[in-house]
């Protein structure tokens, strides 16, 4: 597999974790309870840690001397390849929980497949380290789905609305673009389309416990993030995330 293609493949995984981690970090100091505030920022830091490993590796593969910071802070909107799900606004707590729940269940299956199937030792190692973190994230978000769904009338209605609103952003997780197929043929990547059935089943199991209605799996789905075509939200995320390093390049702590 060519360097540039491998770089593009790794960047997609890195950006998923980076942007979702940055989004979750916005909860810092605003969580619904002190304990949950800390939980959300712990998860944010886990995701940013995963992104750091992946970005560092992507930079090494690219071989142009770009490190994790240069890749995180000096790329523009079109260069980011995260799925649209990761960049959606936090909304209310239920919206954040649903976004996280969909992503956690996906990343768990993806890292599991990567650990078992990828021939790339570095990706395997990152997946093996990350899956322990994601296993906890998945438990955390699934617990909240059940609490809110099987909670009060108000929480049930709100979480159902969040599920219905965010559902159209889940399809993209399982699409295979040209770069994904190249990575799969090279033995490096995984076939995310094969994860969909297991994901739907796992999501449905939690929804049943939560008395949430499962949306239509065949509904029309948004896509574009993996090709660098983003919602209007990503520009604002990057502005906040990147403005200090861009105003003071090479600044050190």
């Amino acid at each position, binding site marked *: 597999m060519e360097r540039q293609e491998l770089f593009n493949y790794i960047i997609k995984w890195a950006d998923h974790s980076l942007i979702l981690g940055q989004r979750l970090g916005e909860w810092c100091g605003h969580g*619904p*309870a*002190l*304990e*949950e505030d*800390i*939980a959300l920022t*712990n998860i944010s830091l886990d995701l940013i840690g995963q992104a750091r490993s992946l970005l560092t590796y992507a930079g090494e593969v690219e071989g142009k001397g770009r490190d994790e910071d240069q890749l995180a802070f000096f790329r523009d909107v079109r260069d980011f390849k995260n799925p649209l799900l990761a960049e959606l606004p936090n909304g209310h707590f239920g919206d954040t929980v649903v976004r996280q729940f969909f992503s956690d269940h996906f990343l768990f299956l993806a890292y599991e497949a990567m650990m078992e199937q990828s021939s790339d030792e570095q990706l395997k190692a990152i997946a093996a380290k990350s899956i322990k973190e994601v296993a*906890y994230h998945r*438990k*955390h978000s699934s*617990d909240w789905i059940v*609490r809110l769904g099987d909670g009060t009338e108000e929480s049930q209605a709100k979480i159902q609305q969040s599920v219905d609103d965010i559902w159209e952003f889940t399809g993209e997780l399982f699409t295979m673009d040209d770069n994904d197929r190249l990575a799969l043929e090279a033995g490096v990547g995984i076939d995310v389309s094969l994860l969909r059935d297991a994901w739907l089943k796992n999501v449905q199991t939690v929804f049943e416990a939560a008395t949430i209605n499962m949306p239509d799996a065949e509904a029309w789905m948004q896509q574009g993030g993996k090709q660098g075509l983003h919602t209007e939200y990503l520009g604002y995320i990057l502005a906040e995330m990147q403005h200090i390093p861009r105003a003071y390049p090479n600044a050190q702590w």
Partner: protein
Amino acid sequence: MSSKKDWPLWEVFIRSRQGMSHKHAGSLHAADAEMAITNARDVYTRRQEGASIWVVPSDQITASTPEDKEMMFDPANDKIYRHPTFYNLPDELEHM
């Protein structure tokens, strides 16, 4: 932080990696025991402190009363012979 009036208080005990016993780490709010465990994990084991967690509803703890302090604890003050410092312990005996 309206949850403080809704969620009960829990006392958290953590056994560290090296530790032999659980030690009181602090308290937190949670809706039930399961949430108390995950909250305790997030609040009190972020820096590798923990190998095991206990949570106990705070209202289930019966405490000695401060007024009884003299009666309860002062009589031990002049009984230093109860300390094991007068005995030579064999090296094989760990964790005393």
